[in-house]
């Protein structure tokens, strides 16, 4: 074991020796320092490994050989080992990254760099408060030097701001230290802290001064303009160090001096953290310069960790672990992001699309962003989860709200940025430089992030059930991304099929999950079949599809809230990357992601409050919520409703589904939406039909469902874009489903299941076929299509059957849903909602006719005369689904009876009885099979009758019509399709005026304007920044000590 003191010896020794090297051997100096940092990393890492293994205990090092408090002592325990390892390794990688710049600028900056790293090591290890002050000053001064690396003129401005503000902070610290010394006669931190519990308490003012100076060093919002300037003025490589090392150190120091100040400050620490977390992220939303944006984000994350430290009494002995999960994610992600920023080398986040030239970096960029927001499988996910659960258990709901709100606001700009990188056009001119030595550190940080996600998982006891196989499979698919589409498609389908068989035993005997498993994975396989029609490589597609399906399947196997939410987030991430692939998907994928994240956080909030009931975090615990049950249920329900796109939360769907790639649309529409349905079902089952806390919720949800349906169908009728029409139709169908399940009656649920299954079947068909046609015809606009029945008869038949199902026309299975609906509504007594639903159902005919007429009927357009049928790879899955529809229509009993039995236990009485093939309720009866026979027979007879009458009907050519006494010869004048419901729109179109879109638009504008307004306090003036800091100190003083 090499003593930790040698870290300092090596660092200073090398720093001093560099002066001997002179100017001649610049790169030799760089290598020398690199070796030194490697040695330092090695020393701290060996301590870390040994301490983790438990082979040794942490030690205290007494300088000068005297015990504390008489001399300065350093401590090397687990915490110190972790942090010094992080800092030294980051130093090492940073130096590697900054190699060229450093070598150019000469030995002085190398010396500064070395001393900077050394100073952080000492501040972490030292147990003497004055020594802490000294090395904090060293860190400050070294940093003010490192800012200059880039040679920008603005760096000098940032530097002086930084020096002045930290000068004030350290001055106050010094006053606090001497006051403390005058009271307890020691400078040892442990000594002061233990004295605090005894007789010689340090004065409150001393504690205050010590604490506030460390807080100021953490750049609390809003007194942090100087800190952000430092981020934006310095080289991104230095930014990585500030964010990854300096901020981490600062947080640990705050933790270290907290006992000195006393426990009564914990609440204020939490408050400061909360304000910083929200305020800094909010300000970040209006930012477009990458380094500055990262600065805001860093400060926000520091605020979050500060909160965690302040919440010690609640988090207990998990505090440090939880803080670590956030810190490590932030450390790796932020370092990586800063480094990428240095490579992209642009002043606008819009130029990051250049990253697409480096797929690996782009993937890592995505991983970093997701890690910052707190997606699985990164450590921050576990951390946030456990924090929220613990807060919930202690009834700290306001802090839950703060953490979720802050995380959401952070997602606003991070996701925007990610989208820009994935979708925007590559910049015309760029100064990017993807040198290998710059890329390697980023790769390593990516590895660290994933590795830590895996390594830290066992430390969260919730996380035992997580299945990593699908995630690894996604990774594998990414590794073979260079292969052509057909091979990857086959592998993916095989993977899904295997996974299906793997999971089937797990859901054996649980019909609910079986149904959804068939929909999720079976549907997945079918929609993937259509992928064979695609050409090229589709980079990244299959990994993301697997991610989504893995998440979906994970929802089904989840036993606890944790694995449920884990899968939920995996699914969200995967689907986001699928959706954003569409040509014009950028804004829609963005709003999809924001709504999804917002919804996920509501679910998380609900779970956290549910944890307050102390029934554990298994999903079944939701049925025993005793604390604020109505809130829990409402939050979770609204969370799921963001996925089912219910009214008010639906504005993302039309664009996201409409603009997605042709085979992604059926995935996200027919399959993904069902995840929300499954979630709602789980919730409803947990709540139970007779739960007194949820009756109002169901009533409200019922109305929402009904209005969603009406608005969805009406909007669909006014669409000109074929895929958007289908998207609005999805909104409406999900409205039906929400309504049906909200009734919470046996027959209502049967209706809900019928609708769910039907929607899965017909929406997959429609999106597959219409999507393929849209691609083939090269337009989304239905009025530019027409007459395709003659070119694509198979597509026409499939669409026709789907439409009959949607319309609920007997004899197909859609009618089963309508019939069950009527009975359910009458039984439940929701007459007006029901009337609305049926009104909406009839409006559906408007868009159904428009769809099939505009695309398939009417006159063929000139440029489509040579069209052929769409690819068989699209038709095959469609016709498999049609077989499903036909079976369901002819034998509804065989599907509905098991479902009926399955949901029986949740309700008091079974209201649907079967007599042979005839279904009966107390209200009415319906015999699907007989109707099939009667209609089939009669239809054949009538067809025969007509054939007898006009067998020799002569086929005529196109345009064989007379129109206004002219024979037309242009299809455009004859194919009436654009805005055909003009009269209808004139009459009641006002109902679908986009008030909700306007509402959300204005909400987002408001947030951005607000952020823009807040950030005006960062006026750039040194004087103002100093005023902010002093103001902050005075206000904090008045609140905490002044009795305000």
């Amino acid at each position, binding site marked *: 074991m090499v003593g930790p003191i040698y870290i300092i010896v090596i660092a200073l020794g090398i720093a001093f020796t560099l002066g001997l090297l002179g100017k001649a051997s610049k790169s030799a100096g760089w290598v020398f320092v690199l070796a030194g940092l490697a040695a330092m990393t090695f020393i701290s890492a060996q301590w870390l490994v040994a301490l983790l293994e438990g082979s040794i205990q942490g030690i205290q090092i007494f300088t000068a050989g005297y015990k504390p408090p008489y001399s300065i002592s350093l401590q090397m325990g687990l915490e110190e080992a972790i942090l010094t390892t992080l800092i030294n390794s980051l130093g090492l990688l940073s130096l590697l990254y900054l190699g060229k710049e450093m070598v150019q600028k000469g030995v002085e900056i190398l010396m500064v760099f070395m001393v900077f790293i050394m100073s952080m090591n000492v501040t972490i290890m030292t147990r003497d408060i004055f020594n802490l002050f000294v090395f904090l000053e060293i860190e400050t001064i070294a940093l003010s030097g490192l800012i200059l690396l880039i040679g920008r003129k603005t760096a*000098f*401005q940032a530097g002086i701001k930084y*020096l*002045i503000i930290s*000068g004030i902070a350290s001055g106050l610290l*010094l*006053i606090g230290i001497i006051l403390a010394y005058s009271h307890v006669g020691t400078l040892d931190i442990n000594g002061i802290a233990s004295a605090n519990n005894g007789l010689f308490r340090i004065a409150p003012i001393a504690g205050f001064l010590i604490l506030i100076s460390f807080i100021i060093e953490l750049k609390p919002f809003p007194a942090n303009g100087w800190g952000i300037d430092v981020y934006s003025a310095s080289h991104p490589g230095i930014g990585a160090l500030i964010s990854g090392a300096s901020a981490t150190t600062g947080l640990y120091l705050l933790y270290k001096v907290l006992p000195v100040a006393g426990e009564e400050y914990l609440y204020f620490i939490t408050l400061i953290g909360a304000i910083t977390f929200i305020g800094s992220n909010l300000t970040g939303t209006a930012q477009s310069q990458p380094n500055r944006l990262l600065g805001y984000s860093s400060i926000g994350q520091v605020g979050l960790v500060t909160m965690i430290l302040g919440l010690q009494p609640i988090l207990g002995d998990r505090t440090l672990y939880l803080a670590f999960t956030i810190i490590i994610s932030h450390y790796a992600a932020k370092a990586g992001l800063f480094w990428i920023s240095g490579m992209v080398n642009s002043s606008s986040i819009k130029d990051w699309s250049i990253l697409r030239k480096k797929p690996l970096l782009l993937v890592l960029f995505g991983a970093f962003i997701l890690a910052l927001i707190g997606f699985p499988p990164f450590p921050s996910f576990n951390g946030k989860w456990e924090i929220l659960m613990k807060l919930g258990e202690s009834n700290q709901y306001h802090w839950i709200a703060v953490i979720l709100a802050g995380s959401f606001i952070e997602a606003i700009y991070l996701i925007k940025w990610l989208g820009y990188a994935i979708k925007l056009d590559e910049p015309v001119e760029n100064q990017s430089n993807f040198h290998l030595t710059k890329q390697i550190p980023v790769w390593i940080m990516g590895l660290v992030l994933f590795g830590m996600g895996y390594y830290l998982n066992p430390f969260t006891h919730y996380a035992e059930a997580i299945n990593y196989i699908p995630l690894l499979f996604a990774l594998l698919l990414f590794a073979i991304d260079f292969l052509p589409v057909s091979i990857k498609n086959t592998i993916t389908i095989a993977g899904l099929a295997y996974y299906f068989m793997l999971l089937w035993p797990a859901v054996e005997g649980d019909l609910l999950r079986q149904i959804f498993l068939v929909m999720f994975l079976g549907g997945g396989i079918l929609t993937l079949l259509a992928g064979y029609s695609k050409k090229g490589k589709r980079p990244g597609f299959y990994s993301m599809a697997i991610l989504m399906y893995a998440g979906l399947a994970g929802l089904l196997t989840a036993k606890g809230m944790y694995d449920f939410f884990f899968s939920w987030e995996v699914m969200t991430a995967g689907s986001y990357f699928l959706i954003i692939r569409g040509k014009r998907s950028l804004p829609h994928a963005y709003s999809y992601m924001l709504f999804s994240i917002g919804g996920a956080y509501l679910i998380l909030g609900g779970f956290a409050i549910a944890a307050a009931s102390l029934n554990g975090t298994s999903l079944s615990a939701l049925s025993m919520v005793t604390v604020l049950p109505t809130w829990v249920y409402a939050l979770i329900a609204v969370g799921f409703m963001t996925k089912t796109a219910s009214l008010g939360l639906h504005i993302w769907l039309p664009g996201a589904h409409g603009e997605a790639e042709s085979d992604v649309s059926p995935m996200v529409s027919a399959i993904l939406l069902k995840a929300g349905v499954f979630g709602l079902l789980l919730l409803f089952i947990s709540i139970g039909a007779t739960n007194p806390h949820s009756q109002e919720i169901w009533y409200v949800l019922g109305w929402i469902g009904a209005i969603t349906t009406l608005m969805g169908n009406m909007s669909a009728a006014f669409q000109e874009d074929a895929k958007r029409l289908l998207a609005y139709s999805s909104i409406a169908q999900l409205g039906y489903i929400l309504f049906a399940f909200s009734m919470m009656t046996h027959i209502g649920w049967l209706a809900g299941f019928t609708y769910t299954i039907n929607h899965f079947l017909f929406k997959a068909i429609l999106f597959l076929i219409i999507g393929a046609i849209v691609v083939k015809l090269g337009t989304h606009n239905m009025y530019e299509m027409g007459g395709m029945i003659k070119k694509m008869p198979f597509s026409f038949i499939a669409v026709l059957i789907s439409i009959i199902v949607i319309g609920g026309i007997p004899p197909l299975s859609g009618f089963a849903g309508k019939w069950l609906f009527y009975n359910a509504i009458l039984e439940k007594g929701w007459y007006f909602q029901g009337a609305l639903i049926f009104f909406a159902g009839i409006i559906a005919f408007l868009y159904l006719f428009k769809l099939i007429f505009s695309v398939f009927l009417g006159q063929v357009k000139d440029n489509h005369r040579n069209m052929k049928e769409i690819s068989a790879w699209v038709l095959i899955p469609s016709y498999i689904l049609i077989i499903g529809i036909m079976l369901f229509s002819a034998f509804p009993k065989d599907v509905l009876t098991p479902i009926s039995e399955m949901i029986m236990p949740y309700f008091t009485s079974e209201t649907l009885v079967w007599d042979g093939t005839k279904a009966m309720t107390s209200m009415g009866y319906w015999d699907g099979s007989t109707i099939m026979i009667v209609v089939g027979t009669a239809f054949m007879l009538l067809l025969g009758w007509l054939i007898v009458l006009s067998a020799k009907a002569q086929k005529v050519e196109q345009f064989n019509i007379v129109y206004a006494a002219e024979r037309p010869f242009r299809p455009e004048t004859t194919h009436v399709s654009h805005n055909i419901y003009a009269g209808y729109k004139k009459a009641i179109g006002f109902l679908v005026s986009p008030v909700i879109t306007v509402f959300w638009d204005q909400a987002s504008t408001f947030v951005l304007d607000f952020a823009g307004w807040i950030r005006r306090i960062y006026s*750039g003036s040194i*004087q103002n920044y100093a005023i902010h800091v002093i103001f902050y100190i005075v206000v904090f003083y008045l609140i905490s000590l002044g009795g305000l």
Partner: protein
Amino acid sequence: MEQVIIITGILLIILGIFGIIRSRNLVKIVLAFTLFNTGLNILMISIGYIRNAGAPILSQIPGQGEIPNIVDPVPQALVLTAIVIGLGVTALMLAYVLKLYQDKGTLDINSFKDLKW
């Protein structure tokens, strides 16, 4: 008499902070900062003061149980360190100011607002 020292120190500190947030001239800000530092040092040194005690330099090694009548050496050691740190920071600040002056030809803080928002 001791009170005067403390009050001097405190007044210097207040004056220093006032100067930092009030001045518009960078050099004045740095000067205010040194005032602030000086006030700090005065405060520090006075904390070790014990009435009628001598300087902490011994002429012989004190015997067992014998306490020499000296002031506390610790604050003196601390203030020595603090002075040196203050010196370093001040020097660096002045170098920065010089650099800024070379850049814009003025010392008015309002000319250095290139970084904002």
